[in-house]
């Protein structure tokens, strides 16, 4: 197994003004007063790490990184540059909420080195925004996209579809208006009911659940509209104008290693997948005491690596080199069935899911493949 030093890095900023009802990420609401202290801890965690190599992609996710001062983001980026170095054309992505992106904010973020702004628009329909528990207005999104297009190398808009409050017309209009606004990249996420969220409790209490068939229709609509507008569908939930694919995510999906800092962050380095503690206070106290915030790690076997390579690669619309695992899959009963049904194709050594909506059905069989030995 080739072990290359990571060239991609994830940083987690957990602060949010409030927790969205569908969110199950590692977030903390109402503790922005701890932002300064937290960023200092992240800096400390970075400095304590061993150097990798100049970074080509950094992703600052959350939480809501735009809810903390750009000055703090700048300090974290400074620490990264100091420790690992930065490639001259590094892509630095930052997740943001439209309501945080006032006139100065975008400029200040650009000033810290952020090159790619990801805007959590979710929808341009006030009814859907309300159902999703979001507080911004559709116009906030359009203003933010405009500002970012001037100052950023790449702009992404995140959308969520398939909420029972959404209609086909509303989704179509959201897509059309986003296309008209002209970001370089659009992520379209099917609303998923995660366990333990306010949304799942509401549904258990009788609120309508997302409909699988409706979501499938909306998914297909998004692919159609965005493709026609020049956004290539390159991953299950991601569409980009040529050259604007998210570089950090491409590394993750190619099963390359990546660094990770901050609470709840997951990284992959030297063949080991690791994760940090998820609770804010535990993270702070550990790092401040000079201890590692790592909570768990797992060394990947060669076969694990092969299965994960396929699992991630099959989500890409380009497909993935079949390799040893792919050949084993194609030889299995399930593999033959999927090929016969036209769900999976195999051409010139590339394995590809032809019906992205059924990706998990394929992956479920792949990750259960018994180990194959030898090349």
């Amino acid at each position, binding site marked *: 197994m080739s072990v290359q030093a990571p060239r991609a890095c*994830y940083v987690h900023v957990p602060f949010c003004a409030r927790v969205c009802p569908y969110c199950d990420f590692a977030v903390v609401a109402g503790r922005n007063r701890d932002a300064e202290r937290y960023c200092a801890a992240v800096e400390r965690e970075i400095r304590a790490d061993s150097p990798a190599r100049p970074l080509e992609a950094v992703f600052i996710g959350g939480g809501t990184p735009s809810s903390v001062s750009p000055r703090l983001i700048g300090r974290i980026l400074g620490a990264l540059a100091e420790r690992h170095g930065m490639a001259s054309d590094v892509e630095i992505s930052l997740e943001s909420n439209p309501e945080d992106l006032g006139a100065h904010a975008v400029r200040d973020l650009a000033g810290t080195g952020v090159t790619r702004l990801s805007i959590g628009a979710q929808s341009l329909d006030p009814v859907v925004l309300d159902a999703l528990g979001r507080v911004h207005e559709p116009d906030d999104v359009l203003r933010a996209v405009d500002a970012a297009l001037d100052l950023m190398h790449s702009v992404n808009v995140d959308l969520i579809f398939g909420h029972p409050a959404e209609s086909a017309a509303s989704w179509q209009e959201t897509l059309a208006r986003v296309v008209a606004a002209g970001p370089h990249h659009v992520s379209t996420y099917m609303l998923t009911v995660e366990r333990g969220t306010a949304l799942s409790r509401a549904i258990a209490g009788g609120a309508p659940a997302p409909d699988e068939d409706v979501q499938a229709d909306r998914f297909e609509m998004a692919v159609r509209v965005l493709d026609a507008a020049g956004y290539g569908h390159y991953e299950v939930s991601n569409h980009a104008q040529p050259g604007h694919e998210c570089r950090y995510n491409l590394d993750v999906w190619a099963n390359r290693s990546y660094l990770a800092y901050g609470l*709840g962050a997951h990284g992959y380095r030297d063949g080991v997948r690791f994760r940090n503690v998820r609770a804010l206070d535990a993270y702070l106290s550990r790092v401040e005491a000079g201890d590692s915030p790592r909570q768990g790690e797992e060394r990947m076997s060669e076969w694990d690596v092969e299965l994960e390579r396929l699992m*991630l690669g099959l989500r890409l619309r380009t497909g993935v080199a079949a390799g040893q695992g792919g050949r084993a899959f194609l030889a299995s009963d399930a593999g033959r069935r999927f090929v016969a049904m036209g769900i999976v194709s195999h051409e010139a050594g590339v394995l590809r899911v032809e019906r992205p909506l*059924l990706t998990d059905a394929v992956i*479920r069989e792949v990750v259960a493949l018994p180990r194959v030995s030898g090349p």
Partner: protein
Amino acid sequence: MATPISRIRNFSIIAHIDHGKSTLADRMLERTGAVTEREMREQLLDSMDIERERGITIKAQTVRLAYTAPDGSDYVLNLIDTPGHVDFSYEVSRSLAACEGAVLLVDAAQGVQAQTLANAYLAIEAGLEIVPVLNKIDLPAADPEARAYEIAAILGGDPDDVIRVSAKTGAGLDELLARIVADIPAPTGRADDPLRALVFDSHFDAYRGVVCSIRVMDGTLASGDTALFMATGGRHEVAELGVLTPFAKPVAALGPGESGYLITGVKEIDRIRVGDTVTHPHHKGITPLAGYAEPKPMVFSGLFPSDGDDFERLREALEKLRLNDASLVWQPETSRALGFGFRVGFLGLLHMEIVRERLEREYDLDLVATAPSVAYRVTMLDGSAREVKSPQDLPDAADRLKLEEPYVRAMVIVPSEFTGTVMELLQARRGLLDGMNYLTEERLELTYHVPLAEIVFDFFDTLKSRTRGFASLDYEPDDYRESDLVKVDILLAGEPVDAFSAIAHKDKAYVYGRSMTEKLRELIPRQLFDIAIQASIGSRIIARETVKARRKDVTAKCYGGDISRKKKLLQRQKEGKKRMKMVGSVEVPQDAFVAALRVDEDQ
């Protein structure tokens, strides 16, 4: 110390379920000093857990009580317990054959119920003296006057002769004991006559082997004798004779009129036939006592282990249960959907439920049971006849000359306000009214001929719920009648699922087919292709549902943070799928079989 035969009384208590038989037996044990209060466990005679929980008696037991009458004379009372449920009426009748009398116990609030009548008739047929007793007179709802009148109307006596007791408080118990001695005749039989003893029950004891309950009619059986079992021809040395007080107490001999237990060292329960006559080998020309009809299973169900690896454990468990339940019969059955299992015959629905519960609880088995079926009689074109206990075995209509199904004579006792409801229900179940008899002005007995298949499903529960619990039911096998029956098959993606096949009356086949296909449409998860669920009679499709192909099976987000979690989640989901049963290319969750076979109210 031998008791003179004139001082022996052999009797049973017979009652409808829940009328307080076991409690009364407990009080008798206490009152006669057979057990101290410390030894007294509630319902001592019901020893199995399930009996205690459900408050019913399954195995008959016998206990010997010492009783001193008010005039100072000492008596031996042999109380022979009887099961209290319709499924076990054959056990009731064989217990009654060991008695000269019976205490007919009736709840003073509920009055005469279906099993009160059924048991009373059994006792009358057996020529027993009946001592009528009203129980629970301490209940606020008790109406002893009206109930006594009811009893008198059935037995033809005087309402004032009905004894009133409370088994709970012990009130009226002394009068009852005195009446047992006064009214029930002493046994007849002479100690020096050739031996004739009736085997009226047997059970398996892990240490002692088969233990027989016997009643000596004539002659004397002594420890060390060689006992000849007339029907089987088996000769076995008497290893131990004894009585239950209720604790086992060995005795040297049992004389005429006495009841007790007999241990011979036989280990296999099949070698002892209940109803056999025991004698001495040197007696010639003995007429055996009237035996009993072999208990005949009436209801059949396929039992399959949820986990195919448990098949052998299921077989062993059935064999162990059979040690104490000779009525249990089975044969191996293979189902494409459910794997290897057994088709098991039961005496009735309760018997089926009890056996299933014991298998699951005592033997820790997880079982799937197919819908209960009855034994159909098929006459083939060539005149040969066969019995069909499983829908899978039903020959093609083209090869059959005649198809008959078993009928029962069902007796329902119900307050008259529910007469219409009950008649409607029985009519819907293809019942034919046979008789209507007012017990009192407000309660009547309805007798119906009804196909057994119509009552094995959910009839009793439906009857109870529609009459707010007031109706009681008893049934006995009647005859076989030709019926317009068809076999309904259920197909998944064109593949018949044997576990769901059913033999149904032509008029109900459509309802069965539609309800089964609808249920399965709800229960079968969407898969990658459309799944047709069809019900058919032969090649004719009578109902169809479709489980539409799954269009979406994908996780929206998969980024750096989710990789291990997502992989493990998908691996777990795949593991879960392994527990599904494959019917052709269709994955069916185990639960779906269970849920589809569960019967609902409106079926």
